[in-house]
């Protein structure tokens, strides 16, 4: 093995001489401790290396071993339910080998080598296959049918294909091409920094439901879409990421804990095996891959962790699955870039971040998308990416936030003001946006009801009106408003408290299907429209606010998915109560012999059904 010699060590950056012949982003092994590093700069025979492990005790004169390969991930059965570090070393195996602390120079294969998987071929000998074609299947977990693909760059006629229990390194199929024989195993490798190929990009037109009302109803994300949630600390970024990882309607979840708290990863590890997928009833862990590079783990590996995660996600996308990647937090990834860049003495851009920050951020998010995959049979896969951003002080002018907002299509603005009021999820309904609303309207409406999108924009209008009215209230007090305006405040309050507010820690409220969301929102709006009508017919504002049924509306969220019909019943009760109030009012006025005059014939828009 060729080797160079270290000349400089500065934190995670090592410079070595005698490195002629190595390429950018080649992996090297530093010193006899064999620390993993990656070449990030070349000058003459000098190579700058970012090292993925702690470099204390390393000094000039020590050897650097070249591998002449870029940073790879191993792709094959055994990924699901695993927890890897930033460069795909399995943390549970590391724990068995070296104890509670992560030491240096550990070499463990990413996929377990001595576990047998049952492989069932789906093609017959004699078939011509090319990259991406499905050779067979492995039932990896109860939720995931792992499809074994012909690896990129390999083609030919199948000479032999086996069925049975194999290790990931066993030959399961041999191909012949131009008289050359290729042996294929269930596992192959792919460099993390190169996006995996697809046949064709498709427009996002399907919704990725998340079970979170404020997201699905107002700021939805499409399958294959990108979203970001920036917010100051304590605004609930991680809770939202966890909620999406739990309830998003994707077949595979890749959760990247990038430079965040160790206890959060522990939380996921303990909780996910317990939680049941609302669709299949199986534990959520059975569709999840975890990448954990916590804040105290080496900084350079943090830089690699997002690439490791998204490459694994692309691999499952290529099988034809809908995959969702959660990256928490991309700011830490950017900070890792900044640290390496600073050590390389590169000229900084904004806030010390490297000038290529925006380019890296956008090329990362661009790896998302809904695609027609390479290979036969024809299939569609989707890769959605949700990145958390942790801007200093919650300041959205932060370069990482700005670079992210330029590429992502959905922006969930987390605000600490809402968090202090204990309004969770603390997603601001005024500042957030989703550019997918029109693209996926058809899909959403098909799943719920024709008027779902109309209903949601009607509700949003009410929330906007509330914000305007609040300005006035702040200046001159609520008494100065007309009853109609006060009713708008009431309607908006009901949407906020009874609909948007969602308790992630309540066993039922934590997830709401699109159907439930539709029914809940339609009750809120129905109530508002009925109230408006009643107000016009002369019912006093105070009587409307005092109605007992409001308690039932507030408790809709706690109804189980199987009892959604009870929500519809609330509407009937509402109609009855309002009619009663109107009747009472009219009678009273008739006895007082006053003419009612106006308002009888007008009706609110939403109450005609």
């Amino acid at each position: 093995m060729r080797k160079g010699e270290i000349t400089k060590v500065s934190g995670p950056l090592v410079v070595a001489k005698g490195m002629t012949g190595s390429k950018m982003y080649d992996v090297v092994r530093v010193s006899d401790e064999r620390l993993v590093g990656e070449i990030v700069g070349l000058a003459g025979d000098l190579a700058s290396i970012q090292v993925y492990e702690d470099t204390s005790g390393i000094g000039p004169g020590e050897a650097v071993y070249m591998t002449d390969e870029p940073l790879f991930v191993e792709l094959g059965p055994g990924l699901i339910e695993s927890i890897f570090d930033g460069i795909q070393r399995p943390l549970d195996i590391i724990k068995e080998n070296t104890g509670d602390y992560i030491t240096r120079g550990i070499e463990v294969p990413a996929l377990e080598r001595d576990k047998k998987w049952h492989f069932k071929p789906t093609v017959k000998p004699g078939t011509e296959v090319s990259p991406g074609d499905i050779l067979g299947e492995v039932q990896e977990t109860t939720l995931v049918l792992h499809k074994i693909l012909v690896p990129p760059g390999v083609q030919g006629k199948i000479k032999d294909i086996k069925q049975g229990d194999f290790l990931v390194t066993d030959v399961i199929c041999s191909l012949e091409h131009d008289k050359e024989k290729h042996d294929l195993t269930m596992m192959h490798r792919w460099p993390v920094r190169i996006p995996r190929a697809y046949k064709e990009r498709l427009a996002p037109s399907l919704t990725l439901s998340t079970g979170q009302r404020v997201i699905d109803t107002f700021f939805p994300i499409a399958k294959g879409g990108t979203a970001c949630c920036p917010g100051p600390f304590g605004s609930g970024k991680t809770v939202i990421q966890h909620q999406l990882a739990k309830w998003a309607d994707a077949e595979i979840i890749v959760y990247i804990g990038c430079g965040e708290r160790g206890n959060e990863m522990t939380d996921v590890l303990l909780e996910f095996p317990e939680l049941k997928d609302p669709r299949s009833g199986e534990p959520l862990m059975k569709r999840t891959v975890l990448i954990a590079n916590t804040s105290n783990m080496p900084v350079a590996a943090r830089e690699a962790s997002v690439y490791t995660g998204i490459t694994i996600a692309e691999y499952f996308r290529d099988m034809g699955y809908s995959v969702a990647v959660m990256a928490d937090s991309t700011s830490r990834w950017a900070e890792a870039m900044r640290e390496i860049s600073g050590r390389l003495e590169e000229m900084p851009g904004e806030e010390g971040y490297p000038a290529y920050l925006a380019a890296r951020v956008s090329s990362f998010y661009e790896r998302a998308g809904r695609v027609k995959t390479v290979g036969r049979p024809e299939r569609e896969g989707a890769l959605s990416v949700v990145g958390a951003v942790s801007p200093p002080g919650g300041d959205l002018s932060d370069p990482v936030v700005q670079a992210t907002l330029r590429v992502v299509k959905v922006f969930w603005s987390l605000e600490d003001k809402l968090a202090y009021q204990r309004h969770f999820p603390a997603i601001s309904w005024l500042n957030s946006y989703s550019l997918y609303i029109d693209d996926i309207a058809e899909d959403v409406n098909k799943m719920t009801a024709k008027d779902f999108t109309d209903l949601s924009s009607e509700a949003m209008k009410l929330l906007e009106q509330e914000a305007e009215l609040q300005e006035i209230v702040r200046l001159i007090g609520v008494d100065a408003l007309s009853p109609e305006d006060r009713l708008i405040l009431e309607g908006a309050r009901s949407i906020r408290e009874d609909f948007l507010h969602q308790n992630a820690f309540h066993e039922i409220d934590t997830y709401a299907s699109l159907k439930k969301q539709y029914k809940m929102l339609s009750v809120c709006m129905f109530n508002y429209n009925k109230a408006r009508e009643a107000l016009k017919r002369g019912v006093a504002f105070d009587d409307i606010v005092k109605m007992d049924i409001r308690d039932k509306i507030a408790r809709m969220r706690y109804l189980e998915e199987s009892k959604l019909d009870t929500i519809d019943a609330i509407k009937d009760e509402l109609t009855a109560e309002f009619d009663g109030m109107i009747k009472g009012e009219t009678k009273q006025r008739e006895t007082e012999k006053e003419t009612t005059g106006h308002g009888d014939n007008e009706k609110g828009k939403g109450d005609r059904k």
Partner: protein
Amino acid sequence: MIKEYSSISNVAGPLLLVEGVDGAKYEELVEIYTGTGDKKRGRVLEVDKDRALVQIFEGSTGIDVQNCRVRFLGKTLSIGVSDDMLGRVFDGLGRPKDAGPAIIPEALLDVNGAPINPTARDYPNEFIQTGISSVDGINTLVRGQKLPVFSGSGLPHNKVAAQIVRQAKVLGKEEEFAVVFGAMGITFEEANFFIQDFTKSGALERVVLFLNLADDPAIERISTPRVAFTVAEYLAFTKGLHILVVLSDMTNYAEALREISAARKEIPGRRGYPGYLYTDLASVYERSGRIKGKKGSITLIPILSMPEDDKTHPIPDLTGYITEGQIILSRGLYRRKVSPPVDVQQSLSRLKDKGIGKGKTREDHADLFNQLIACYARGKEAAELAVILGEAALTDMDKIYLKFSQEYEGRYISQGEYEDRTIEQTLDLGWELLRMVPRGEMKRVRDEYLKKYYDAKTPEKAGVTG
């Protein structure tokens, strides 16, 4: 093989450049002998060919280019640990500072430690009763958590920390606990306050003190929390003790880090702090927690003063991103003679949900907490409105809430320095205050708990008593 050099070419601030060095290692420990025979210690920050950049812990006073000799020790900074360290006082680098004998080490440990494998961690979920209502009731501390106190100059953060140390206990268990206290750049008076307090409560023999005071070398501070954590890890995970680590004041620590960074002419991040401040703080804070199968635990309470009470200043900001919540002290409350002045709205304990409830505190805790916060928020809104429009303009309901929020501050948040409230007392006090507000407003509490706790006691004392 220990090598000695006298080839210092450059001294700048706390940094020293040694030339012609053979085989220096990154993070290696060095000893510097000045012309007058003084010994100082330092560590290698960077090696480039035969040049080593050394950071001197004790500052560069007395160092010259001609006569100084630098000895490379071939090892990284480590500390000898032993449970004899309990009850002793050390300097910021872990050398005995009191009159006691030298420590006979049971193990020699690298102060930088190693990251805990996330799969080895156990989730913190054991409730710690601190006896302070605003912490126990609202921002519950659990064992293995890192919960900083964000304070400002002139606020009683030391008293709060001392009270927590004095009163903290896990209910129903008599377990061995100890405190590791790391002082970074605080004054003698502040350090003395803690020592006196530990002495008075008889806790001193359960405390390991690392003191780097305001007049001690600033650069030494960078090692102080690491030394403290190394001892804490040993006591917790080898000796099975429950350790409470108190670090004060992290702001001084970060400033020492900035000093080094500036001397190295690194590209500064926000407010001149280095770009790696987050990573550096994390490498300290993340050493706390619990480990599966280990008896002990490390709970961390770092104290930091926010310059100008600004929560978005890099130090509190980055700390908040790493720790599991924060206790924020409010100047406004303190002015109103509310003490401890815990700003319950901005404070947060992220781990409380797993540490409260049936079997841990009491079944009604979560609902009660939500209701109290909601009512208090409403009361604060009413108070703001009253400032603008006058109290007369408030609705009757707003007036009730206003009254509630005042009582809440005066009786619930406020408590004596030596008042140790049990969790039952804290919860019952919460209900007592809630009874000032009509039952119909209790929207966040389950009906069964309302029946059991809100209705249970006849509301004689509730209402308008002060």
